[in-house]
């Protein structure tokens, strides 16, 4: 048996596995004793098998791969690029509340809780000529009271009071029943719901059901000037 035949027939492996016998084993051994490469191969095989005998019985030590965390759609929220600015904004908002908003609210609350005499702005005598335009100085973060005279003529189921800004835009509306309209109405107006300048209060009557014309009827138009005290 020559070296080429040994390689082709995997004779070393056959020898190690005890598959060679008789003449083939003798032939291989003749080659083995004169070929240092095959001798080394056989010795390597014997060493491997001897060591494998003990090692193959040892449970395989395989590092458990760390489970890849599945990043859900909310993962962007925990990203430092988002979390950092968000926390900074939260801190800013908190500071604004503590140092600006809360003192202002406390001040306003104190004003509300302090007993005071109300000087309502009286809006009456609609249509009277030569009347001067009444004026009120309203606190910026407070309110003022308007004493409103609704011309309670009959035939209306309710009255609509609308406040218009100096520019003509509607600021707010309130509906008044005929019962409420019998006396002067006291309307508390938050300053924030008005605009500085010449405001207009329009009072309209809503005709009762069954009347021929269901359209609102203008009853009075009061103009007053608001000056906001800062």
């Amino acid at each position, binding site marked *: 048996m020559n070296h080429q035949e040994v390689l082709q027939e*995997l004779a*070393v*492996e*056959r*020898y*190690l*596995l*005890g*598959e*060679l*016998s*008789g003449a083939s*084993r*003798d032939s291989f*051994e*003749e080659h*083995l*004793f*004169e*070929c*240092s*490469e095959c*001798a*080394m*191969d*056989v*010795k*390597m*095989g*014997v*060493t*491997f*098998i*001897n*060591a*494998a*005998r*003990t*090692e*193959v*019985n*040892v449970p*395989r*030590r*395989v590092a458990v791969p760390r489970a890849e965390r599945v990043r859900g759609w909310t993962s962007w929220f925990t990203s430092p690029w988002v979390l950092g600015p968000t926390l900074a904004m939260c801190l800013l908002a908190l500071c604004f509340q503590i140092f600006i908003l809360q003192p202002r609210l406390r001040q306003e609350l104190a004003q509300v809780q302090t007993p005071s005499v109300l000087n309502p702005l009286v809006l009456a005598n609609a249509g009277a000529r030569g009347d001067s335009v009444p004026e009120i100085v309203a606190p910026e973060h407070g309110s003022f009271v308007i004493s409103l005279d609704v011309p309670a003529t009959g035939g209306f189921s309710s009255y609509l009071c609308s406040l218009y800004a100096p520019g003509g835009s509607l600021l707010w509306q309130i509906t008044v029943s005929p019962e409420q309209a019998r006396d002067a109405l006291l309307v508390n107006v938050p300053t924030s719901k008005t605009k500085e300048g010449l405001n207009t209060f329009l009072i309209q009557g809503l005709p009762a059901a069954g009347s021929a014309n269901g359209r609102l009827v203008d009853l009075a138009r009061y103009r007053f000037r608001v000056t906001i005290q800062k």
Partner: protein
Amino acid sequence: MNFVTFDASYVSKLRIGDAPTEQHFIQYFSELILLKLRSRLHSQELIEDLRQETFSRTLSLIRSEGGLRHAERLGPLVNSICNNVLMEHYRSSNRVEALEDKTAQGLVETRPNALATVISDDTRKLVRHVLNGLNERDRRLLQAVFLEERDKDEVCTELGVDRDYLRVLLHRAKASFRVMYFKQVDAKKSGWVFG
């Protein structure tokens, strides 16, 4: 484990009784003789006796008048003398059949012996590495064949492979081990510690 070239100088040193050369000679051929004898004999003591007898005769012949004329024939000479020693043993024990017809189940010694004990921790690590690279079936195959020493045909059938697969598996495992072994040797030579 190194490639060895037996030349005139080597034989000459053996002839004059150079201790390191003689030690190398005995170590190199001991492993081969043990493999050869184990495939034919069961008795550990007898194997050892025949091994020593083989070396005794070989060294006597080398140191005799005329000695060994062709140094490159040193290996075949050792094999030939070992065969003669074996034959004489068969004749003396009237065991003509010997174990010739038996397969070499005991080729690799399972009992503790000199060869087995020289396996270093480094070598075990290398083998462990090779084994860890195998799939579960291949590991099971080697375990059944070499550790449990089960019938190879039976194991192959059980695991759905043939004998060729077993040979190739051993070939690949051995080749991987060999590559890593020499890397380790090179690393140690250059001051690295492998593994």
